């Protein structure tokens, strides 16, 4: 079982990676007035057929052959719904997939957001052929990272070069603190 929302985000984004996405947008938005934590993961990968979409939250449905269960989406959906939230997947074959999970921010059963910086950092440095746009919003403040801006500066220097990898981590971490003032979600 996942213990952090950020681990679910890493897991769900891996589906976008395997779907051959070239661009993945991840949005995390905490709104204390509305008492909602909204997470949106959007990709331009292969998408799903209508039949796949209907069974995607069924734990006994998976397209893989190494095992018979597919728990990722099931876990995530349950985690959102257990907090009075909602869960939605839109997908079109050949176009891409959008997964939106809304959590009750102050609900006692909401798992912590966890180390979102580590999740985004891992995704960025492990998938250099994929562009990421990550937005983190806390009430009215927000910041956005677009890895195409990093690529434009770096040229052919890879993201997993130690100095660059550290820069990306610190960039994510410092901007996050700037936006949420260090409040742990």
């Amino acid at each position, binding site marked *: *079982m*996942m213990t952090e929302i950020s*681990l679910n985000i*890493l*897991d769900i984004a*891996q589906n976008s990676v*395997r779907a051959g996405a070239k661009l993945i947008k991840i949005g995390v938005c905490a709104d204390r007035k509305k008492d909602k934590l909204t997470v949106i993961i959007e990709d331009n990968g292969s998408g799903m057929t209508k039949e796949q979409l209907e069974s995607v939250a069924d734990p006994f449905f998976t397209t*893989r052959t*190494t*095992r018979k269960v*597919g*728990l*990722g989406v099931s*876990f995530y959906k349950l985690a959102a719904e257990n907090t009075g939230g909602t869960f939605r997947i839109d997908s079109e074959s050949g176009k891409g997939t959008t997964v939106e999970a809304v959590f009750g921010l102050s609900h006692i059963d909401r798992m912590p957001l966890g*180390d979102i910086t*580590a*999740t985004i*950092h*891992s995704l960025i*440095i*492990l998938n250099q052929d994929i562009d990421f746009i990550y937005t983190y919003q806390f009430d009215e403040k927000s910041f956005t990272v677009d890895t195409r*801006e*990093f690529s434009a*500066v*770096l*040229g052919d*220097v*890879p993201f*997993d*070069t*130690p*100095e*660059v*990898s*550290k*820069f990306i981590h*610190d*960039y994510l971490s*410092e*901007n996050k603190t*700037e936006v949420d003032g260090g409040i742990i979600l």
Partner: protein
Amino acid sequence: MKSLAELKAIKDKMQNQVGVRIENECGTRIVVGMATCGIAAGARPVLNAFVNGVADKKLENITVTQTGCIGLCQYEPIVEIHEPGKEKVTYAKMTAEKAMEVVEQHLVRGQVVKEYLIDIK
């Protein structure tokens, strides 16, 4: 606050160094299982430990990559080390601490850490 100007400075520094690391196929690959089973079992801190360990020890020609589920979910987090000209080594039930030890013993000294090897019964 970090800015893109700082990233530019890093890039310029890298380019001035002799022998800037170029991704190559003949280096060592550290492969971490990052499917639902791996992530739920704690693969993310293991991956981070390898990334940081390789950087801290200034190890060259090593890349850290990911893979999906290989059907041994009960042994996750699983890490495979592929070294050119050697048999693949598979470590099971890894943690960040064990990963640091593998960096130190296996990657730096060339000694496989036997007690962490996968043991399929």
